[in-house]
């Protein structure tokens, strides 16, 4: 419950996170066009899976900006960083975030274990 209030009704945190978001998006705007395009595509795609407050998703995106900035500094093409299968890259990133699909998977296993799991008599 503490988590809930901390994440959803915490005005200070909301304002702070909005300010941070704005700062981070300014960093995105400073990237070359190809990088910006890919970043925004990844961001949009990944948000479709976000569960809960999404703060962890934001952290992943902020880290990603750093990876992209390093790529620009090394003079690399954006697809040399992500690979051409950008969706697969996103899948891997999503494994570090809390997602709807992960919640559904957990619920599926939990429900079935509760009904049929070890220590349960029903057959």
């Amino acid at each position, binding site marked *: 419950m503490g988590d809930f209030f901390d994440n959803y009704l915490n005005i200070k945190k909301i304002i702070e996170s909005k300010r941070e978001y704005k700062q981070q998006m300014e960093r995105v705007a400073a990237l070359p066009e190809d990088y910006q395009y890919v970043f925004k595509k990844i961001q949009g795609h990944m948000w479709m899976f976000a569960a809960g407050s999404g703060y962890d998703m934001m952290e*992943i995106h902020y*880290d990603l900006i*750093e*990876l992209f*900035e*390093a*790529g*620009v*500094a*090394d003079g*690399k093409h954006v697809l*040399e*960083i*992500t*690979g051409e299968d950008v969706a697969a*890259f996103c899948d*891997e*990133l999503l*494994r*570090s975030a809390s997602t709807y699909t992960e919640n559904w998977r957990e619920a599926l296993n939990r429900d079935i274990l509760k009904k049929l799991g070890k220590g349960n008599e029903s057959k």
Partner: protein
Amino acid sequence: MLKGVLEGCVLEIISRKETYGYEITRQLNALGFKDVVEGSVYTILIRLEKNKLVEVTKKPSAMGPPRKFFALNDAGREELKKFWVKWEFVASKIDQLKGV
């Protein structure tokens, strides 16, 4: 095929010396894994960090933003040991299947 074992490869490389994403990628490429991109190594590093298997230090780099350097901690070394045990098992079973 490689996907499942890449995490073990990354753990092994980090265990030898503190290193960063691009260097790990280059080592894997030099080893012959040509299509491993920095992004795949990056997602593994994020997961290792999240699962508290590595110590992370930020160090300034000549160009661009500061780089994250990774070193294994005790939990990471334990995980690497487990990986090699699992690998030995899989490798021996595949050999058996192939009739070696």
